[in-house]
C-alpha cells in the first residue's frame, strides 16, 4: 500500500464526537441508579436487544466508512507529493474488490452476462450480436457459465458452515465469560441481559453476512446499476449517509430544544411568550416546504462559492451537514414543546420550591434538579426521531432537495433506479435492494425505540 494522507470531513468529526459523547453518556448512566435501571429494562427486552444488535452492525459499517484518506499519486522522486482527488474510506479499502469491479452497465444479480445486447467481435473476424460476458461477475468460472448454481451453492455451504462454527464458538464464549449464564438459563431467557435474543440475532446475521461476503468478490450479488457499479457496494455506502442524517440532525436540534424548552417552562412570563411565539411560527410553515426553501437557498450559496471546497467529496459532505442543520431547525419544535410542558409541572413541585426558597441559583436548579428529570423525554425523543429521519432522507432526495446527487444514499439509489421499472425486462434489483436495506434499518430502529420508550416512560409501566 502506498503513501496516504488522512482526510477529516466535517461529518466524520461530528460522528466521532457522537461516539465520544455516547461513551461519556454511558459512564454517566452508571452513576445514576434510575437511568441504569431503565437501561437494564431495555437490556432485558428481547425485541429491543435483537434490534440493538442489528443497529450495531449498521453503526459499525457507518464508522468504518467515516475514516477517510487520500492515496498519494505515483510521482517522480524529488517532486512535491500529489494526492488523488478521490477521497476513500476504510470501508472502501476493505470492500475494494466491490468498488473496483465495474461493469459496463446493468447486470442482474449473479449474472455472468450483461443486461443489454452488444456487437461483439469474433476472434476469427466478423461480428455477432449477443449479451457480452461480464468483466468481473463469475470470471473465475471461465467458459463454464452454467456452473453458477453449483458454484454458488458450494460457496454458500462453506460460508454457512463457517458461520455456524463461529456462532457456536461465540455461544461458548458467552457462557464462559458472562457471570451466571449457563446454557439452560440462556435458553429460557433467565439472564439479566436478553442473551438468547442477542445470540439468535447474531446467528441470523452471520448466516446472512458470511455467504454474502464469500460471494461478493466473485459475483455481483445484488447486480449492477446503470454505470455498472455494484449495488451491494452502494448499499454499504448508503448506510453512513442514513446514519449521519438520523444522528447528526438530532445532535443539532437537541441543545436548542432542551435549552429553550426548559428556559420557557422555568422562567415563564415574557421569556415563555417569546419562545412559544418562535416555535409556533416555525411550526406554521409546513416542514417539507420550509426544508425545500432552505435547501434551495443553500444550493445558491454552494453554487456561487465554488472556491470554498477543494474536493467534490468535501462539497457533498458540507451539503449533507447543511441538510442535517436544516432538518434540525425544522424539527426541534416538538421536543421543545414537550420539555416546556414538563418543566412547567416540575417547577411547581415541593423540592424545587424549597430549593428556590433556599436561594439556590436558577442555572443550578435547572442543571441539578430539572434536567435530570427530563432525561427520559430526551432519550425517548432521540431514538424515536431516528427512523423518521432515515425515511425522510429518501423522500427529500427524490424531491430533489436531499443529499448531493453524487453522494450514495438510499434516496439517490431509489431515485436513479425508479425510471428503470419501465424497461423490458425489468431492472428491479437496485430498487429492491435499497428498499430492503432501508426497511431492515428502519424496522430495527423502530423496535429499539419501542423498547427504550417502554423502559423509560413512567406512564407505560
Amino acid at each position, binding site marked *: 500500500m502506498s503513501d496516504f494522507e488522512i482526510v477529516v470531513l466535517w461529518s466524520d468529526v461530528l460522528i466521532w464526537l457522537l461516539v465520544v459523547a455516547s461513551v461519556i453518556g454511558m459512564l454517566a448512566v452508571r452513576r445514576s441508579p434510575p437511568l441504569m435501571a431503565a437501561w437494564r429494562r431495555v437490556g432485558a427486552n428481547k425485541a429491543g436487544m435483537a434490534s440493538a444488535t442489528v443497529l450495531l452492525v449498521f453503526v459499525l459499517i457507518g464508522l468504518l466508512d467515516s475514516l477517510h484518506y487520500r492515496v498519494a499519486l505515483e510521482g517522480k522522486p524529488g517532486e512535491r507529493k500529489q494526492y488523488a482527488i478521490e477521497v476513500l474510506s476504510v470501508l472502501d479499502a476493505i470492500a475494494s474488490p466491490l468498488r473496483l469491479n465495474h461493469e459496463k452497465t446493468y447486470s442482474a444479480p449473479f449474472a455472468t452476462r450483461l443486461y443489454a445486447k452488444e456487437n461483439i467481435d469474433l476472434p476469427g473476424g466478423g461480428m455477432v450480436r449477443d449479451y457480452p460476458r461480464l468483466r468481473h461477475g463469475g470470471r473465475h468460472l471461465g467458459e463454464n457459465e452454467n456452473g453458477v448454481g453449483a458454484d454458488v451453492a458450494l460457496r454458500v455451504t462453506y460460508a454457512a458452515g463457517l458461520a455456524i462454527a463461529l456462532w457456536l464458538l461465540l455461544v461458548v464464549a458467552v457462557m464462559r465469560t458472562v457471570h451466571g449464564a449457563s446454557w439452560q438459563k440462556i435458553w429460557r431467557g433467565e439472564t439479566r441481559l436478553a442473551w438468547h435474543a442477542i445470540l439468535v440475532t447474531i446467528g441470523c446475521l452471520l448466516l446472512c453476512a458470511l455467504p454474502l461476503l464469500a460471494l461478493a468478490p466473485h459475483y455481483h450479488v445484488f447486480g449492477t446499476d446503470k454505470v455498472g457499479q455494484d449495488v451491494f457496494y452502494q448499499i454499504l455506502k448508503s448506510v453512513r449517509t442514513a446514519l449521519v442524517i438520523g444522528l447528526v440532525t438530532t445532535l443539532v436540534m437537541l441543545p436548542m430544544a432542551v435549552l429553550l424548552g426548559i428556559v420557557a417552562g422555568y422562567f415563564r412570563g415574557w421569556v415563555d411568550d417569546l419562545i412559544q*411565539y*418562535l416555535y*409556533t*411560527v*416555525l*411550526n*406554521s*410553515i*409546513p416542514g*417539507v*416546504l*420550509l426544508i*425545500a*426553501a*432552505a435547501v*434551495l*437557498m443553500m*444550493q*445558491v*450559496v454552494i*453554487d*456561487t462559492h*465554488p472556491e470554498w471546497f477543494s474536493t467534490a467529496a468535501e462539497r457533498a459532505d458540507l451539503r449533507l451537514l447543511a441538510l442535517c442543520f436544516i432538518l434540525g431547525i425544522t424539527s426541534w419544535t416538538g421536543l421543545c414543546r414537550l420539555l416546556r410542558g414538563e418543566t412547567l409541572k416540575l417547577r411547581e413541585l415541593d423540592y424545587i420550591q424549597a430549593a428556590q426558597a433556599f436561594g439556590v441559583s436558577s442555572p443550578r436548579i435547572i442543571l441539578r434538579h430539572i434536567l435530570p428529570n427530563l432525561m427520559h423525554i430526551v432519550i425517548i425523543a432521540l431514538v424515536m426521531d431516528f*427512523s423518521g429521519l432515515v*425515511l425522510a432522507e*429518501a*423522500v427529500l432526495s*427524490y*424531491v*430533489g*432537495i436531499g443529499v448531493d446527487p453524487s453522494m450514495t444514499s*438510499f434516496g439517490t439509489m*431509489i431515485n436513479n433506479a*425508479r425510471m428503470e*421499472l419501465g424497461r423490458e425486462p425489468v431492472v428491479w434489483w437496485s*430498487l429492491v435492494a435499497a*428498499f430492503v436495506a*432501508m*426497511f431492515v434499518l*428502519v*424496522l430495527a430502529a*423502530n*423496535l429499539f425505540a*419501542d423498547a427504550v420508550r417502554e423502559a423509560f416512560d413512567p406512564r407505560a409501566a
Partner: protein
Amino acid sequence: MPHNRAMFAYLVRRLLYAIPILIGVNLITFALFFIVNTPDDMARMQLGVKRVTPEAIEKWKAERGYDKPLFVNSAASGMSTVTETIFFEKSVRMVVGDFGRADDGRDIAREIATRMGPSLAIALPTFVLGLFVTVSLALMLAFFRATALDFWGVVLCVAMMSISGLFYIIGGQYLIAKIWRLVPISGFGEGLDAWRFLILPVFIGVISGIGSSARWYRTIFLEEVGKDYVRTARAKGLPETVVFFRHILRNALIPILTGVVVVIPLLFMGSLLTESFFGIPGLGSYTIDAINAQDFAVVRSMVFIGSVLYIVGLILTDISYTLVDPRIRFS
C-alpha cells in the same frame, strides 16, 4: 348567554393571535429568500455561474422586480419609499393574495386556484377513507387487546410504518397499473371520468398511512380502557361491545378528531409524492416542478399559503375542542 359570549371572545383572541404569527412567517420567508442570498446571487445561479454579464443579471432582476431596494426606497417620495421595495411588493402583497408571476410568466394566484381542485380530489378521499380505516383497525386491535390478534396486528403496524412511503407508491403503481393493468398508470381526467385516475393514488395513500396511525389510535383507545368510567360501565353490567362502542369510542374520538383537524386545511396543498408520481396537475406537483426548476417565486408563495392554512387549522382545532368537549373553559 354568557357561555357563548366567552366562546366568542376566546375565538376573537385566537384570531388576533394569528396575526403576529403570520407576520413572523412572512419575515422568515423574506429573510430566507432575499437576505440569505442577494438577488444578484440568485441571478448568477440561474443564469449559470461561469458566463454571466452584469447586464444579464440586471435584466433578470428587472424581469422579476428584484431590482428595487429591500426595505426603503430612498429614490422615491411619499408612500412610494415603502411600497416600491422588494419587501412590500413580494411579501406584504402576498397577504391580499397577490403572488406575482412565475418564471414562465403565468399568474401564480390563478395557477393555484385551478390546481387546488385536483389536489383536493386526491387528498380529501384519502383523508376520510384513511381515517375510517385506521380508526376501525385500531378499535379492533384495542377490542382484542392482549390476544394473538392484537400482538400480530401491532407487529404488522410496526413493519408497515418501517416501509418507505416511496415503496408503497412505486410498488403499488408497478403492480396494479403496470402488471395487472387495472387502472391507468398516471394522468388526470375532468369531471366524472376522473375516478379511474383517482382510485389508485387514494388506495395507496390509505395503505401507506395505516401503520403509524393505527398504532397511535390503538394507544389512545387503550388509555381510555383503563379509565374509571369504563370500570363503572362494566360494573353496571353493560356488555363489552356496548362499553366499547358507546363509551370508549366516543371518548377516544375527542383526542383523535382534534388531532386530525389541524391537517384538514392543509389537504388543499396536496401531496408532493403522490401527485408527481401519478401525474396529477395539483399543487403538490406544482411545488415539485417549482423546486426542480428553482422557481423561487412559486416556492415562496407555497410556503406562505401552507402557513396560512396551518394557522387556519390551529384555529379550527380550537373551535373543535370547544364543540366536542364541553369541559373546556375559555381562559
